[in-house]
């Protein structure tokens, strides 16, 4: 409603993508292994989204994310379907409707074992996804000053020379004037204007 003819919106063909047709308990059941399998695509998309803050510019990465997710769930269906189905049905029936994993520890261990054996996917340790993760892309940093990740907002660090060593400092006695009386009054710096 607030977009004029000048704003470029992507066309319907650009936005065509298959839908990840998976229910929410199944998404939660496979979340850790999904994030491990599709790590690159997820990080690319989230980085693009954070830096550009523009959904139009991240459509391609979004499509990669969706296709990778579909690929993962297809793989799960082909190899580990039984354990996965028991896990997400158990989560669906968890108390309070919270889909908490503490209700379904046995099924979770079974699915993890199956994923490790058949799909060669190991789930990272419990605190892994809470930590800040770094990502390196070939996509250039956006230079629009109104965007968060722009160069104007984050100027690159300058290469400063190393500070001088003690042996170099001995060559300049005039710099030691302030230390005439030792370190008794280090905040007093006596400026010796001439000898």
């Amino acid at each position, binding site marked *: *409603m607030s977009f*004029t*003819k000048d*704003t470029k919106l992507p066309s319907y063909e650009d936005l065509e993508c298959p839908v990840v047709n998976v229910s929410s308990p199944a998404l*939660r059941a496979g*979340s850790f292994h999904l994030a491990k399998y599709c790590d690159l695509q997820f990080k690319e998309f989230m980085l693009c989204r954070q830096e550009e803050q523009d959904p139009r510019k991240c459509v391609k990465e*979004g499509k990669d*994310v969706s296709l990778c997710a579909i690929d993962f769930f297809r793989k799960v269906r082909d190899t580990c379907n039984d354990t996965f189905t028991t896990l997400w049905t158990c989560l669906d029936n968890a108390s309070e409707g919270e889909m908490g994993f*503490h209700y379904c520890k046995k099924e979770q261990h079974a699915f993890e074992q199956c994923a490790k054996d058949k799909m060669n996917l190991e789930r990272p340790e*419990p605190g892994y996804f809470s930590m800040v993760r770094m990502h390196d892309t070939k996509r250039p940093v956006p230079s629009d000053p109104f965007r968060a990740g722009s160069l104007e907002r984050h100027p690159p660090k300058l290469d400063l020379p190393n500070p001088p060593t003690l042996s170099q400092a001995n060559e300049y006695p005039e710099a030691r004037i302030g230390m005439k009386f030792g370190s008794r009054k280090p905040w007093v710096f006596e400026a010796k204007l001439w000898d």
Partner: protein
Amino acid sequence: MTGFSKVAVYRQELPPRGGFTPIPWARVPSRRIPLWPFVSLWLASNIFGYFYHISEKREYWRNEMELDESRSCIEPVLLAEQDRIVLRQYRANRDEEAKLMSDVPGWEVGTWFGSKVFKSRTYFPDRPHVLDYYGLARPSNQRLDINAGQWQV
């Protein structure tokens, strides 16, 4: 004295034979129960409960962390789909508005009689606004998505 030949017969209330039963006047201390079982039980439950509570808290926060982590793992999938849906809706809204206001003289699509909502040429909203998304929808369609606010994954 004269004239007192007849004596009225009356019955006097006297104590029973052998005297009254003795009145218990000595102090009788009340029934007492020992205090040490209760105090010891309370202290033991305190000490045990302290350590048990700490371990339970740790387990509780571990489970909460797991839920939060699974939610942040799923976020990119949902965000990508949401972006596509929102962009599709923006385009449909713009086309619909052009169709609706084609007969209004001097109406530019996306402006309020000439004044634009977004003044900067490079800005695009990151998160969808209610009016941008539902601006041209009828209330019955808006009410279909009321439960969207309750969706949690």
